C-alpha cells in the first residue's frame, strides 16, 4: 500500500464577483445577478476537464461536493458532476464528499443517485455525507436545529436502503417512506465507502468511530487537524480498535512550481481568494440558530477565543502558510512539508493536494496538477508508481466478456408468456420462430398475422 493517497478536489468556484471588501458575503446574500451563465459554462467545462485529467496524471481519486447559493463552490448537485466524471474516466475512484443529506426532502433520492453512479461506474463511487454548512440552511425549509437529527436518520435510511432487501417501511421521526425499494442497488458491497467530512466536533468523531467510516477534515490549521485526528483515534480506541491511517484524510490546498519563489508568485492570489473571498461569511450565516447545539456552540466559540483563531476570511497568506492551511513551494519544499504534515497528524490521504483552487487559470491548474503528479506523488508511492486502486481487483467486471466469464447467466433469465407460444419463452431467444412454435423447424414459415 502506498504511504499516502492523493485526491484531486474541485469546489468549482465562480470568481467573477466584486472584491471581498465590497461585499457582505460570498454566500447567501451576494446576488446571483453576478453569475453569467455563459462564463459559467466555460468554467464548468474547464473544471471538469481538470478532474478528468487527474486520472491520466495518476491521482488516487477525484472529488466534488455540494454547496448552495454561493460563489465559492457552484455544485448544488454534485451527483450531476460525478455522472459526467463517470462517463469521462475509466478506472479512477470518484468521491462525492458529500451530499448534504439533511437538506433533501427524501434521502432516498441520494441513495438512488449514488447507486446509479456506482452501478454505471462499475463500483468507483465514494459516498460522502455532510450536514451542509450553516449558510446552506437559508435557502432551505429545513430548520438548522433539525440538521443533526435529520443527518443521522437520513444516513440510517440510505444505508438500509442500500444493504437490506426491499421493500420495507421506514418509520422515522423526520422521514416516513411506506415502501423503500431502491432500484438500482449499488455495486459495492455492503455499500460504497462512506466518508464524513467534518470540522472535528466530538459528535462527528464518535459517529465515524462507531461506523468505521473515513474522516475528512475540512480546511483547518495543522494543529487543529491533529487535534481532531487524535480525537478520532481516541474514540476508535475506546471502541476497542486501532484506527487505520486510511481513515484519516486532511484537506490542504497544495501548489508546486519550479522554485519556491515561482510557486508563491503563481499561487498566492488564488489560494488567498479561497479563504479571504470565497469564505467571507458573517457569523450569523455560518451559525444559523440551532445549527449547533448550545453546548457545541459554547465549546466551539470558546475554543476559537482561547486559541485566538481568526476567521478564515481574515487570514493573511503568511498565516495560511505558517499554520499549514496550505502548502506552497518547490518540489523539495512541498515533499518535505507534506511528509512532515502527514507524520504529524497521521493522515493517510490528502484532499485537494495539487488541485485547482480559486480563480486560478486553467493552464496554471493543469501545470500544478501535472508537476504535482510527476514530482510529488511518486515520493509517497511504492516503486511501481501505481495508485492503490489499480493494484486491487476491480469491483465489477470491466467488459461483457469478463461479465459472462465471471458471473455466468443472470439468476433470473428474462422470460414471459407470448401469444402463440405454448409456455414461457426466453427473451434472448424470442426472435426465433421455432421458439414460439416448437412444431416449426428448419427454414422459417411465412409469418402470419396474430389472431389474438
Amino acid at each position, binding site marked *: 500500500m502506498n504511504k499516502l493517497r492523493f485526491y484531486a478536489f474541485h469546489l468549482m468556484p465562480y470568481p467573477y464577483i466584486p472584491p471581498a471588501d465590497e461585499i457582505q458575503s460570498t454566500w*447567501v*446574500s451576494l446576488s446571483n445577478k453576478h453569475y453569467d451563465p455563459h462564463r459559467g459554462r466555460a468554467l464548468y467545462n474547464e473544471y471538469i476537464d481538470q478532474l478528468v485529467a487527474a486520472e491520466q496524471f495518476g491521482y488516487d481519486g477525484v472529488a466534488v461536493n455540494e454547496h448552495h447559493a454561493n460563489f465559492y463552490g457552484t455544485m448544488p448537485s454534485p451527483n450531476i458532476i460525478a455522472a459526467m466524471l463517470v462517463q469521462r474516466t475509466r478506472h479512477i475512484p470518484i468521491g462525492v464528499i458529500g451530499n448534504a443529506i439533511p437538506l433533501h426532502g427524501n434521502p432516498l433520492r441520494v441513495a438512488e443517485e449514488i447507486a446509479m453512479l456506482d452501478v454505471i461506474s462499475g463500483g468507483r463511487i465514494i459516498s460522502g455525507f455532510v450536514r451542509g454548512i450553516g449558510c446552506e*440552511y*437559508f435557502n*432551505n*425549509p*429545513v*430548520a*438548522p*436545529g433539525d440538521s443533526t437529527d435529520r443527518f443521522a436518520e437520513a444516513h440510517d435510511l440510505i444505508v438500509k436502503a442500500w444493504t437490506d432487501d426491499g421493500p420495507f417501511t421506514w418509520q422515522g421521526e423526520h422521514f416516513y417512506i411506506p415502501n423503500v425499494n431502491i432500484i438500482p442497488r449499488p455495486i459495492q458491497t455492503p455499500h460504497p465507502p462512506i466518508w464524513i467530512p467534518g470540522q472535528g466536533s466530538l459528535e462527528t468523531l464518535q459517529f465515524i468511530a462507531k461506523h468505521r467510516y473515513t474522516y475528512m477534515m475540512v480546511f483547518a490549521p495543522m494543529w487543529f487537524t491533529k487535534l481532531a485526528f487524535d480525537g478520532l483515534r481516541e474514540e476508535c480506541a475506546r471502541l476497542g480498535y486501532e484506527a487505520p491511517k486510511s481513515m484519516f484524510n486532511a484537506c490542504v490546498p497544495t501548489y508546486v512550481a519550479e522554485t519556491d519563489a515561482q510557486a508563491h508568485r503563481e499561487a498566492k492570489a488564488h489560494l488567498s481568494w479561497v479563504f479571504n473571498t470565497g469564505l467571507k461569511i*458573517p*457569523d*450569523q*450565516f455560518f*451559525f*444559523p*440558530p*440551532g445549527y449547533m*447545539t*448550545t*453546548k457545541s*456552540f*459554547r465549546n466551539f*466559540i*470558546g475554543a476559537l*477565543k482561547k486559541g485566538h483563531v481568526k476567521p478564515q476570511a481574515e487570514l493573511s497568506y503568511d498565516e495560511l502558510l505558517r499554520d499549514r492551511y496550505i502548502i506552497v513551494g518547490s518540489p523539495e519544499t512541498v515533499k518535505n512539508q507534506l511528509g512532515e504534515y502527514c507524520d504529524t497528524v497521521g493522515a493517510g490521504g490528502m484532499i485537494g493536494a495539487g488541485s485547482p483552487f480559486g480563480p486560478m487559470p486553467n493552464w496554471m491548474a493543469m501545470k500544478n496538477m501535472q508537476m504535482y503528479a510527476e514530482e510529488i506523488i511518486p515520493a509517497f508511492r511504492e516503486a511501481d508508481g501505481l495508485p492503490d486502486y489499480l493494484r486491487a481487483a476491480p469491483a465489477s467486471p470491466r467488459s461483457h466478456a469478463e461479465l459472462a466469464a465471471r458471473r455466468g447467466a443472470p439468476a433470473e433469465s428474462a422470460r414471459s408468456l407470448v401469444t402463440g407460444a405454448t409456455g414461457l419463452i426466453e427473451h434472448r431467444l424470442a426472435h426465433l420462430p421455432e421458439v414460439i412454435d416448437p412444431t416449426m423447424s428448419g427454414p422459417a414459415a411465412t409469418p402470419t398475422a396474430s389472431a389474438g
Partner: protein
Amino acid sequence: MSYIDAVEKIDVPKPPKYHTEPAFEEVFGIPVAYRRQGTGEATVLLHGAGFTRMWIPLYAMLAERLDFIAPEAPGFGATPLPKWLRGFDDLTILYDELFTRLGLDRIHLIGFSMGGWAAAEFAAFYPRRLKSLTLITPVGLRLPDEPGVDIFQLGPAELMDRLFKDKTVMQQWLPDAENFDEGIHLYAEFSAAARLMWAPRYNLALERRLQRVRCPALVIGGEEDGLVPNAMSDKYAAVLPDARLVRIPGTGHEPCLERPRELADVLLDFNEEAAR
C-alpha cells in the same frame, strides 16, 4: 419516554438590569419558568424572541393593577427546550396546561412579536378561554407582497437597529458584546425561535382559524416597525372578528421597551373595558 432526557439543559446568565428569579411549574416534564405579581384580572403576556429573564418596567406597571403572569417559553429564559417541542401547536398545548396548573381559567392574553403569533395560535385553539386578546407587533400571517426582512440573516447591530425606532432607548438595551455567557444564551434563545419559525414564517391556517376568536381584540403596532412590516398588524386587525388597531407613536418593533408608560395605559384601559 423520558421527557427530561430530551431536554437541553441551559445555564441561565443574569441580565444586568431588571433581573428577577422566576418561579417554576412543571408541565410535561419540563420546569416552565414564570413571573407573577399583582392582583386583579388574570392577564398573561407571552414574550418575543428576546429580552427574557427580566421584570421590565412595563410588567411592573401592569402588575400594579392586574394579576400579571409572564411565562418563559421553552428555550427562552430559564425554561429548557425539550426535543418534542416542534411547533406552535406544542407550545399552545403547553401553555394551556400551564394555565390550568396555575389555577387560571379565563384570562386576558397579550403576546408580543413571536409571542403575538403564539397568542394568536392559542386564541384559535382555545377561544373560550380568553376574555381578551392583545397582539403587540405580532408576526405569523403571510404578507404576500411584503415578506419583510429575514431576522435570522441579521447581525446583532442591524437587528437592534431594526428593532428600535427610538435609538436613545435602544442604547439602554444593547447586549453586552463582551459577555460570553450572554452571547451563548442569546444563540440558544434564537435556536428555540428558529425551531418554531424557520419555515414557514407564517401559518396560513390562522387566517381562517382566527374567525373563532369572538372576544375583544386589540392589535398594537409600532409607528414605524423596521423589522416586521406595519401591514402585519393591519392584517391581524382585519382578520380578527372584533379587533381594533392602535399604533404607539415613537415606537418601532419594541413598544414594550420604547414607550412602556404609554403602552401600559393603552393595555390597562383595554383590559378594563374587556373585563366589563
